[in-house]
Structure formats: structure tokens, C-alpha cells
């Protein structure tokens, strides 16, 4: 079992659609990205721009309107109060958050990250708090003489009042709501990633099960044992034919069995390899039933097309089992690959047509076809389809139409 410690969403990737808000505005746009990510920070700071500009204007107006002390030693200190207020607010808003963004870039373990972010935000509060002494609220010692005891007491009281007023304000500005939202978001992301992983494993399992059942259907009793039985008979009566059967069987097993393995990670294989597999399979059948005529047609440039493994062979096996075997006398099977254009996308059409007994004699449970439809749905999301039709000349034509890609496209 794989251990999941970090959400799979990248530090700066947008959130999954289900978690992102759809409101306009910088603040809302910030919420479409993980909290304390780079992009989130940019949008969050833009959302503070208007309040900070407003605050600067208000402070400017106050500085003009409030009567200041006469020009002298206290004069500069008095007017420094206004930019100091602005600086304290800006520091409280920005410093903790920007440190938190730096923390997140390290991609530490969740617990360490959360603790570090709390520290970063607290540091922002303390830094802002350390600037508050520049904000004067009166009680300055009068120049030219030592301060009286009363004045010293008053100044200390003022500093206490300063702290008591500033501290909660700065904490509020430094973003406790962002912190809470960050923790909640992280939990949701974690759950979402677990769910996505579960879905991924489920799909992978379904795909492998589908391949396994296809292979089991072909290699299991009927095909393999009938072939071996035929080979044994041919050893004495017609050794040449026995050798042909064995050779085709070897080709077939060699090309088919590796497609079952889980480590054969590719979801797609080349059409060429599948056609070789089909040829080998039909070669065995033909050696057993000389009445069968086989045609396989494919333009050389289509051999590189990417298709899901074991799908074409499944259709061919179906045609042999339900169309050819129950038919008396000569029979034929055509396997063709064509490129067709649907709008601006190229489509690959794979057709397996037989002139067997047709739908009337179909007795199977149709598991093979349901299996193919489910796999196409999962792999192509509705862009591919399987269709069956009765042919005018008798028999059945089964077609898979899917988007034309080469294996190179799919891998990269």
C-alpha cells in the first residue's frame, strides 16, 4: 500500500474544480488557488491594494486636518505617526503571509508545514507589533528638562494601551482566517487526492481484469486444447500442417501473453502488433479448418496507430466462435483498418466482418462485447464506439471507431 503524505495537487496548481469558488474579484480569485501558494499570494495582495490605498489617503487627510505641535523637536515625531500606522498595517497584512508562502515552497510534511506557517504568521504579528512604538499617542517628554514621575507613568500607560489595542487588531490583520481556511483546504485536498487515487486504482484494476478475461477466453479450453489436439493428430497424418499450426500458435502466444502483464504499463499498443496477433490466431484456426479464407488489410502508415490491447483479437475470436464455427462449408473473415475523417479529427475504423451464420445463432452471453464497450468508454470518454451490424451477404460486421493517434502521441 502506497503511503500518501502530501496532497498530489502541486503547490501552485489551481484547486480541483469542485473546491474553487466562482466569484469575481481578487479575493475570490485568490481562493481558486491553494492558500499560501505563489499565485494565491499575488491575488491576495492585490485584494489588499484598495484598502491600503484608502488607508493612506485617510491618514493623509488626518495629517493635514489634525492640528500638530508647533515646529520643534516633537514635530517630526508627530508626523511620523501617520506613515507608521500605515507601515504597521501593511506589515501585519503582508509579512506573515509572504513568510508562509516561503514555508510552503519547501513542501515539508503536513505537520511541520502547519507549525511553520503558524510561526510565520505569528512572526508577522510580532514584527508589526515592534513597529507600533513609532505610533505616538502623546505623552512625549518635553524637551529641555527631565520628565516628571507623572509623565513617565503616563508614557508607560500609553505604551500598554497601545499594545492592548494593537495586538488583537494585528492578529486579525495577519490572517487567522487564512490559516483556518488553509488547514481545512488541506484536509479537503487530501481527501480529494485519496479519492482520485482510489478511482485510479479501480480503473487500473478494471482494465487488467478486462484484459485477463479476454485472454482467458482465448487461451483457455476451446482454442488452446483444440489446437493441441489438432497438432497431435497432425504429427502422424500431416506433419507439415502440424508445424504450421505450432508456428502460428507460438506467434500468437508470444504476442498476446505479454499484454496481460501489469508491468506492461502502456494502455495502448500499435495496431501493427495487434494485426500480427490476429494473423497468428487466424493462421491457427485456418490450419485447423482449411475451409476458412482469411483477409487482413491495413495501410502500412496505419500500423503505428495506437489502440488498446486485446480488443481487435476479441472481435476476431467472437466472429470465429459465433459466425464461422457454426457454419457449414466455406467461410471467410475480413479484418480491415481504415482512416476516416470526422470533421477535423482523424478516426481509425477497425472492422471484423465474417460471412458466418449471423446473429440468429448467437448464443453467448455477450460478455466480450460489453467488456469492449466499457473499456472504450473508460479510455476514450465517449469518443470511441463499437457497433455491430448484419451484413447483406450474411454474417456480421463488427466495427470499432476510435480517434487516430500514434503511439508516440500517446506516450508523450
Amino acid at each position, binding site marked *: 500500500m502506497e503511503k500518501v503524505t502530501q496532497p498530489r495537487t502541486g503547490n501552485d496548481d489551481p484547486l480541483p474544480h469542485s473546491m474553487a469558488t466562482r466569484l469575481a474579484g481578487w479575493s475570490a480569485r485568490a481562493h481558486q488557488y491553494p492558500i499560501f501558494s505563489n499565485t494565491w499570494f499575488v491575488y491576495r495582495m492585490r485584494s489588499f491594494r484598495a484598502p491600503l490605498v484608502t488607508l493612506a489617503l485617510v491618514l493623509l487627510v488626518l495629517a493635514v486636518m489634525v492640528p500638530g505641535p508647533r515646529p520643534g523637536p516633537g514635530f517630526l515625531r508627530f508626523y511620523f505617526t501617520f506613515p507608521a500606522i500605515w507601515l504597521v498595517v501593511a506589515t501585519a497584512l503582508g509579512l506573515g503571509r509572504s513568510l508562509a508562502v516561503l514555508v510552503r515552497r519547501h513542501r515539508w510534511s503536513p505537520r511541520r508545514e502547519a507549525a511553520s506557517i503558524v510561526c510565520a504568521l505569528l512572526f508577522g504579528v510580532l514584527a508589526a507589533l515592534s513597529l507600533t512604538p513609532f505610533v505616538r499617542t502623546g505623552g512625549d517628554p518635553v524637551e529641555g528638562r527631565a520628565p516628571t514621575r507623572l509623565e513617565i507613568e503616563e508614557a508607560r500607560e500609553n505604551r500598554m494601551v497601545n499594545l492592548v489595542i494593537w495586538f488583537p487588531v494585528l492578529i486579525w490583520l495577519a490572517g487567522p482566517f487564512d490559516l483556518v481556511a488553509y488547514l481545512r483546504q488541506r484536509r479537503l485536498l487530501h481527501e480529494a487526492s485519496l479519492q482520485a487515487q482510489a478511482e485510479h486504482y479501480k480503473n487500473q484494476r478494471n482494465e487488467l481484469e478486462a484484459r485477463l478475461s479476454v485472454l482467458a477466453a482465448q487461451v483457455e*479450453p*476451446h*482454442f488452446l*486444447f*483444440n489446437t*493441441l*489436439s*489438432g497438432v*497431435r*493428430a*497432425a504429427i*502422424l*497424418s*500431416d506433419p507439415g*500442417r502440424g508445424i504450421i499450426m505450432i508456428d502460428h500458435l507460438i506467434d500468437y502466444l508470444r504476442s498476446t501473453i505479454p499484454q496481460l502483464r501489469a508491468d506492461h504499463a502502456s494502455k495502448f499498443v500499435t495496431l501493427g502488433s495487434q494485426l500480427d496477433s490476429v494473423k497468428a490466431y487466424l493462421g491457427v484456426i485456418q490450419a*485447423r*479448418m*482449411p475451409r476458412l479464407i482469411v483477409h487482413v488489410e491495413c495501410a502500412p502508415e496505419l500500423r503505428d496507430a495506437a489502440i488498446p490491447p486485446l480488443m481487435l483479437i476479441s472481435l476476431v475470436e467472437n466472429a470465429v466462435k459465433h459466425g464461422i*464455427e*457454426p*457454419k*457449414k462449408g466455406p467461410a471467410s473473415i475480413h479484418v480491415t483498418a481504415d482512416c476516416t475523417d470526422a470533421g477535423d479529427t482523424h478516426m481509425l475504423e477497425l472492422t471484423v466482418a465474417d460471412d458466418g451464420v449471423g446473429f440468429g445463432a448467437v448464443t453467448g452471453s455477450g460478455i466480450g462485447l460489453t467488456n469492449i464497450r466499457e473499456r472504450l468508454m473508460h479510455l476514450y470518454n465517449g469518443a470511441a464506439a463499437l457497433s455491430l451490424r448484419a451484413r447483406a451477404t450474411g454474417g456480421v460486421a463488427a466495427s470499432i471507431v476510435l480517434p487516430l493517434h500514434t503511439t508516440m502521441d500517446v506516450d508523450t
Partner: protein
Amino acid sequence: MPTAIIADDEDLQRSDLQRLLWLAWPELEIVASCEDGDEALAAIAGLHPDVAFLDIRMPDMSGLEVARASGGTCRIVFTTAYDSHAIEAFDLGALDYLIKPVTQARLEQAVTRVRSQLGAGTDRAALIKTLVELDKRIRPAAQ
């Protein structure tokens, strides 16, 4: 001499079974070698073989259908690559159910079973005959 027919849509399978039967039961005479269900049914009806070796998957009529249509006039042994029809086969009164590829040893077992059935058939007929004879002799004496 006991007689048999063989039915299989693949010529190699027919010749294989014929060869194996010749080894296992040399005095058995193969009176027909059929390549589909219709032929097999006609052969059973026309030639009255003691035993029919039927493949299950064949064109036109499956071996199971042939066995059903022949109505128990002939002993049946199925030969098939499928193991899923066994219950149905024995319901139809088949003597044996051989899964391909049939090995020499397994076929000999089937042959023994068929032979004992044929033997039992003759023994019983002889026994009934003797009983009837005895009955004829005893009845006048009793009267």
C-alpha cells in the same frame, strides 16, 4: 463386431480420434466419419452404430442436439474442448464425456466403460432368453 461413428467438424480431430480408437479397441469398426450434426444424426438413424463419438460444437446441430434427437437409440460419448456442458451431457444419458485433447489412457477408460455396457447389454439379453426358455419348459410341467 461392434460399430461406431465419429462426428467432429475438424478433419484432424476426426483422424486423431480414429487412430486412438484403433489403438484402444482394434475390433471396433468405424462405419462413418461425419463433419457436422446433420450427418451424424443421419448416420445414427441409418447405420445403427453401437456407439457414437460426438463433438459438441459442430455446424448445423450441436452434439447435444444430435444426442437428444437420436432419442437414446445409440450409446453416446461426447468429445469436446469445453467442460461446461458435462451436466447436460450426462442428463442426456451419455456414457462418458471426454475433454480434448483426449489422452490414450483416458480414451481406454471410456472404451472399457462402453464395452462393459455393450457386454451387460448382451448378457442381459442372453439371460432373458434363458429365462423364457426355462419358463416354456416349466409351464407344461406345472400344468
